[in-house]
């Protein structure tokens, strides 16, 4: 199978996948907890983008029904709804994470993984 061609037709998917991997790589490779959180954020946003890409339709319009129009192609509304939820979940998670970061910093005076490890043991 011609994977390259298949991927070319799915440009958005490939790019969002790349963003997911970049975010996860950031989480795994960075020592700073804030950086890890940034990586997490990038990954979540990328997943949201992937969902949104799914809904795209050639010639599609914003899914708001105007009176008196017929045979209009709309972008799929369902992924939009789901992703509204996902965005809110994302910011909620971030909020809790910040609260934890502040507590960690208040206790250990650092947010670097290596230093924290030394101070907890």
């Amino acid at each position, binding site marked *: 199978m011609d*994977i390259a061609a298949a991927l070319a037709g*799915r440009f958005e998917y490939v790019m969002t*996948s790349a963003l997911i991997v970049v975010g996860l790589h950031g989480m795994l490779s960075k020592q700073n907890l804030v950086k890890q959180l940034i990586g997490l954020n990038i990954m979540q946003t990328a997943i949201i983008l992937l969902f949104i890409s799914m809904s795209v339709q050639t010639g599609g319009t914003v899914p708001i029904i105007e009176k008196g129009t017929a045979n209009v192609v709309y972008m799929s509304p369902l992924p939009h*709804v789901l992703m509204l*939820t996902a965005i809110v979940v994302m910011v909620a998670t971030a909020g809790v994470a*910040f609260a934890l970061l*502040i507590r960690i910093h208040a206790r250990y005076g650092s947010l670097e993984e290596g230093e924290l490890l030394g101070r907890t043991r």
Partner: protein
Amino acid sequence: MRPPAYLALGLLSGLLLYAVAALPPLRNPDSPIRTGVERYFVENAVEDTATPNIVSAILADYRSFDTFGETTVVFTAGLACYLLLGRREEGESGK
């Protein structure tokens, strides 16, 4: 970063590429999400709810339970921050 992390990352990239190539292509009017429940929403949202914004209609009516959960998520986050950092109790002067 330790070798297992690289391995996991490599596996994930491979998996994603492998999977994404097999997803129904973008902008395809016959893809399952177009032929699934979505059709019902587009056709009936205005009649059912008198709300032209389909997203709002789904969000606050068809899938309103999700949205209730989502509001609860926000509230949970607020409560969590309060629980972890809360220093604004009323009547604090007494303590």
